[in-house]
């Protein structure tokens, strides 16, 4: 298999895992898929580092693998074990079929959205950068339609993975400084959201964000 077909394979895994994460409501499954997505994402910089012999890309690859492939999905999986199952509540505002349809539409919109970029550079990786944008849109879908706090955190992670995938596919990765700062910020942001979720269980007895509706202008 050539390098570019491996990159295509990783991109396909990224997109598919995103579509499945959006359609599932089970946190443990979402955590496993998120791990798969993180690993698929880290193969992009690894493959590119191999081809371009770049130390920065190797470092970025290990960073992605560590943060997005191991630590963050691990946090989601441990939250799945820790948080009481709330079977009586619906976890999503839309059905699986609708979610799949929205993901399909997002992919088409993302492809159309990146056409101006592929005019600039017709390499196959730049063309695949629409996958990153599609993941961003799928992340937005999860953020909007999932009702549970951790479900929304998962959406945020998919969105962020999409941006990272876009960066790797379109430009061989953003500068290492930004990658490093971005990963650190992402880690802290997720830890804070996790801490807030724990407080939610104590205060409200649920992680349903629809319960957070006291503030507002009436």
């Amino acid at each position, binding site marked *: 298999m050539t390098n570019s077909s491996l990159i295509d394979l990783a991109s396909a895994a990224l997109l598919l895992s995103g579509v499945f994460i959006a359609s599932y409501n089970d946190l443990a499954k979402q955590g496993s898929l998120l791990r798969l997505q993180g690993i698929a994402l880290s193969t992009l910089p690894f493959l590119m580092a191999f081809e371009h012999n770049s130390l920065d890309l190797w470092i970025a690859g290990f960073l992605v693998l560590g943060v997005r492939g191991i630590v963050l999905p691990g946090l989601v999986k441990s939250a799945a074990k820790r948080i009481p199952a709330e079977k009586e509540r619906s976890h999503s505002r839309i059905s699986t079929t609708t979610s799949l349809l929205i993901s399909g539409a997002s992919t088409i919109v993302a492809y159309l959205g990146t056409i101006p970029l592929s005019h600039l*550079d017709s390499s196959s990786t730049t063309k695949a950068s629409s996958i990153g944008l599609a993941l961003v849109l799928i992340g937005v879908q999860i*953020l909007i339609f999932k009702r549970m706090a951790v479900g929304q955190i998962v959406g945020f992670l998919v969105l962020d993975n999409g*941006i990272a995938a876009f960066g790797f596919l*379109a430009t061989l990765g*953003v*500068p290492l*400084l930004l990658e490093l700062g971005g990963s650190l*910020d992402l880690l802290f942001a997720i830890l804070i959201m996790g801490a807030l979720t724990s407080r939610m269980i104590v205060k409200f007895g649920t992680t349903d964000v629809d319960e957070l509706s006291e*503030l507002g202008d009436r």
Partner: protein
Amino acid sequence: MNQLLVSTALLLPIVASLISFSVKRAKVSEAISIATSLVLLAISILAMTSVVDPSRVVIDGLFRLDRLAQIMLLVIGSVSTLAGWASISFLDSLILNHEFSRNPQGPPPNRRTYWALFNIFSFAMVLAVLSNNLGITWVAIETTTIATTFLVGFKRTPLSLEAAWKYAMICSFGIAIALLGVSIVYFAAVHGGLSGSQALQINVLTTHFRLLDHSAMRLGVGLMILGFGAKAGLVPFHSWLPDAHSQAPAPISALMSGVLISVAFSVILRVVSISNLVLGSSYAHTYLAVMGLASMAVASLLLINQRDYKRMLAQSSIEQIGFVAVAASFGTELAIAALLLHVVVHGLGKSLAFISVGRVESGFHSTEISKVKGLLKNSPSVGFGLIVALCILIGLPPFGLFWSETAIITSASGTHFVLVSAGAIAFILISSVALARSVLKMTLGLGDSGSAIAVSRGFLPIAGTAFLASVLLGILASPTNGLLIRAAHSIVGIG
């Protein structure tokens, strides 16, 4: 000199944060945090008196202390000094309330965490304004969210938890959109032939703007304005602002309203200056005019029937930052100079307002406007502070907002945005009347004679300092002041 000032401004808040976290004595944390804010203020004044070369980049081209950075540093230094000062009595009363509460919610408030986060917040804002690299700027703005989320939820009530969650979600989402924008600009720069290490440096992008592809830049700039706009409190991602401001500790609300949104807007100004060179001025200016006017419209309409005084001040901030965006859309040197004055004076006025209502909240245990009456009679110093803040915010002379608003409106006459300026005037009028009505309801009248608020020793000097600074600025700094015009020139005429 540049390098020394930049390094001091960046390192000091980190050191202060570490010390505040590790030292047990509260007095030490308080002193070191306020001293840090004062040093930031001193650095900005020192830099303005032209001891530095504003065009020089330092530390591998990552930072610079240009005129916009100097003015933003002035806002950060002055407001964080006031907010830090006010935090002392805020924490005292919060901890006292917790000790005497029959039904305390969660563990007692932790001063060490508060001061450590306060200093990290300052650091992140300083980093954002000094950065010459869009990537570092992005990391800095995201760091402000991380530092402030816990501060918004500091009171540990269910409402503050809700506010913190919404704040974290909306701002992180907005900032993620901005990161996509940054990646696309990087893509355009790398494909234009710039080296990877230089492709996000603002001064390099403005010098080599001809190399950047138009359609990629249109997408990138659009996403960045939208994303950083979330942090600035511009429509459509403005809804976190009233929630967070109404629940956060008053000094933190002062910092967020007075400085954070302006810092985020200064980042937008930098993005716009690149965009104007590459795409011509009409793209970003129209974008800002629409966002600004929409923000003003939403905020002033919500202000009309507002029942909560902290939400009211937050909505006034959305309206003000909307007006700042409108001013930026006019794009003339006068408009930008006036915008900078507006940001400085608004920062002071809004801090005074939040610090005053912080006292009201701790006295009345409610943030409802209808519950508060007769402040001027029963608690004259707080009532006076609130009235002065009102005069500053609605732009009465001699305060600076009068001059900045007049100059901004006048500067529209030569542009295509006369109608936008007419709309802005209408919204300013609506919001000023709404703000004045509510503040007067709270301050005038007889009120309940038993409702006098215990005013801490610190309040009067803080209010007095903010008052004096605002009057001095109103008298000394008109929008035609040389310093502001030079700063505006460096932003508008960057090419």
